[in-house]
């Protein structure tokens, strides 16, 4: 079955060790890929050209060609230790970053014929989250011991903060306009920093802006919308909350009662959001109405990661 082309593909992965590709607008599953038999899917991302899907889990990182029907990965990482928690691509696909519980964030050169590691950053604690700054050289990271890091991959300088002791940072995000950085922890709190940078400055300056008691429990992910106007936080309390970045007030709350909301992704126009939850269903919400427009059913266990690459249509 043709997986790409004109279709928009939503990729989901979860505890059933399976990655599913969905036709976003119909909710039909177009492909099912068996991930590693011993691992859940921790994070998913697509290469900027949308042809490849990268997935990471326990002791594994794999890249799949989603245009071919071959179920085998095209790239497989060997000797991976512990959980790999996040991965992502530089906007041209030149390199990929991975963050893992082996305390390290690595930069992988994907241009060379044999991809190899070209940078490593040691967080001294299991890394739960990493995210790339829109300037494509800074990476924000969050670790299990509560540390938040900002690392410039080019000059290899970094900055470290601990917003809350005895809390584990679950996710970090930087707004596409480069204005804000957000970090969420397992206590339900969300921290916001303002980022500023002068032309000759290597590393952006972090200035604390706000602390929001975003959820009652564990926050699992945070993401800014493409227009930077919204921030979504997903939690183990069965909700995903959407905050307006202007004042960081809650704008919408999406409920998947009694289930953990593991991941979320915005559409390019920031009007829709996908959520992945532990009921094994991915949902597409229209933010204006809070309606679940589509449901993507097929996973037999919790969905823990999703990836959606939308496009802006200009008329």
């Amino acid at each position, binding site marked *: 079955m043709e997986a790409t082309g004109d279709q928009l593909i939503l990729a989901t992965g979860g505890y059933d060790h399976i990655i599913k590709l969905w036709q976003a607008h119909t909710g039909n599953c177009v492909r099912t890929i068996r991930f590693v038999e011993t691992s859940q899917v921790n994070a998913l991302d697509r290469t900027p050209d949308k042809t490849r899907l990268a997935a990471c889990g326990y002791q594994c*990182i794999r890249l799949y060609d989603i245009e071919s029907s071959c179920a085998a990965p095209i790239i497989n990482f060997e000797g991976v230790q512990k959980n790999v928690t996040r991965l992502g691509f530089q906007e041209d696909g030149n390199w990929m970053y991975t963050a893992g519980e082996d305390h390290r964030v690595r930069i992988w050169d994907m241009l060379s014929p044999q991809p190899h590691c070209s940078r490593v950053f040691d967080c001294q604690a299991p890394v739960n989250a990493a995210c790339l700054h829109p300037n494509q050289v800074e990476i924000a990271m969050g670790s299990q011991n509560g540390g938040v890091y900002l690392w410039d991959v080019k000059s290899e300088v970094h900055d470290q903060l601990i917003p809350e002791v005895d809390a584990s940072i679950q996710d970090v995000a930087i707004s596409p306009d480069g204005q804000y950085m957000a970090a969420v922890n397992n206590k339900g709190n969300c921290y916001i920093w303002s980022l500023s940078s002068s032309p000759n400055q290597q590393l952006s300056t972090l200035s604390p802006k706000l602390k929001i008691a975003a959820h009652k429990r564990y926050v699992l992910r945070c993401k800014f919308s493409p227009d930077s106007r919204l921030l979504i936080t997903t939690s183990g309390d069965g909700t995903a909350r959407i905050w307006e970045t202007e004042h960081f007030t809650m704008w919408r709350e999406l409920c998947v009662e009694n289930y953990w909301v593991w991941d979320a992704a915005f559409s390019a126009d920031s009007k829709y959001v996908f959520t992945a939850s532990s009921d094994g269903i991915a949902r597409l919400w229209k933010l204006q109405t809070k309606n679940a427009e589509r449901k993507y059913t097929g996973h037999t266990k919790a969905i823990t990661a999703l990836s959606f690459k*939308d496009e802006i249509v200009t008329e």
Partner: protein
Amino acid sequence: MASYSNQHWLLSHIRNSFISTDDTGMCETVMLSDDMPKHYLRKYQGASVSNIATQNKQQQRKSLGNKQQFQRILDPVLQEVDFVCYPGLDQSDDEDMDSTTQSFEIQMYPEVWAHRFRSNTAQKLEKMDMARRKAAKTKSINYDEEIIPPERNDFFVKKKVTKSLQITKNNENVVRDIDVTDNIGTSSNTAVKSKLALQLANSPKQVQNKFMEYARFDGTSQAGIQTKRIHVFLSMLPERDRKTPIKICVLASAKIIEVIGLVCYKATIQYPEIPLKSIRHYALYMTEDNDAMEEFPPLDDREPCSKFGFSHLTLAERRPLAQVTRIDYANNVATKSMTSEEDKSRVAAAAVRSIQDMETNTGGISDEADSNCITNNEEYDERMMSHNDMLEAPMYRTYRLIINEKPFFKTEVTLGISGERIEIDQHKNAKFWTKQKAVTYPIDVIASCEIIEKRHLKATLRIWLKSSSSSSSNSNKTSTDMKSMTHASESSMVGGVAGAQSPKSPGHYLHVPSSFGLFSTSSGSGNSATGQHFPQMRFKHYDFEADTHTAEHILNKLSCILNVRSSEVRREFLQSRERKQDKNQAKKHLKM
């Protein structure tokens, strides 16, 4: 048997058996390459020459000759052991010997191989080969390898974050509360439109698969969960597509109804132009792999699909008559059998007729026997229910109940009811009382079944049957005694109970302990009127206690059977009841 005393034959047999049954292939590699008897023969050729002459009389022991002359020493221990040679083995030429020592089925030609079970080794090798070929396509990267800093200076390029996003953001403040997706192409100030919004707008909700909820039973690529692969033919497709089944992989735990849902889900994706009804309308039928649907009832919706081993099934509209048990009305013999369409309609018609006679099932039954013109689904279902009740009634079923013999004595029993007989079997765990023998009554002696008492959850069920003592051989004395007693009890009851038929009036019948001890016997009063045919027909009854649902089920089942058969006993029972009622009525009138 003679061959079992033939050592060589035994050896060869054991050898062949090992080779042909060992799936690991190990025996084959070891044994086939080394034909031991042959080796030994060659080995001991020299030594045996002298003994050839005497071999015909008895199996000769070949003593080991000079050790040094053998170049190939296979087993040092064996060298000390005498080798028994099969008579004539050394005389035959090589071709002959090959055929005697080795089964014809064991040959190393690859084309003959196919007839044997493929050994695990072969399969393993093939799997490894596949994995290797797969791996060739997969690029492998060592996670822990050395760090090679990028050679190019422009590998990491700092991009300027465009603030244009913020500009559009400001523009959008105006649009924020207007839904962009709903008025595509109308507003010009909608700066950002996503492809997703466009596609959603172009695909209304109806396009969505209505069988979506069943997608979760898809077992494709599932690891660690049992799944089943089934090829399903879709009977609703146009001719050319009907021949190609859709392949589904379903979780083994899914029920058949959920399998149907998944098939519908897949079918909707694959053939979006074929409209499907709700899954209730469909059933899965057993099918040959050439898509010839079998004349068997569909798979039970409630069963897990793991229970069935079919590789091919057909999804078709549920046939009006799902399961048919043929009741041979002429011979009063119920047989379970699959019937032709003609028989089906005949049985159906008969069933409908008898249902119409039943008071309990008057609702929802129309005269039309042909199912094609049914428009109302509910009505149809209801009718189907009654049909099935009718048709399933003669099938054997057992119930666990409590029997009320005499007051205070309650025993657990198993009541078995079929179209031919009923059985009452006392339960095994009844330790307290000596176990009674099981009793069986042909259905012809059963007169009636009724629920005499209904409480909140429990009900008392009474089954009337012809007493075995009601034969003409009964002594006159007993019968007259009984009659007088009956009359006595009757008169004593008359004032108290209005309806003589009331089940709460056991006084109408004389209770006589029977030989069985489980039931009471009573005589039908006023049997003199029908004396010409059944001068002494008397009835006894069993009372059972059960939960209301079971009691009603039994009542329904037994009534169905009895109504269809309408035996002499039943007729007599009903008549006697009527007469009694009349009599009581008359008496009441008299009193008034």
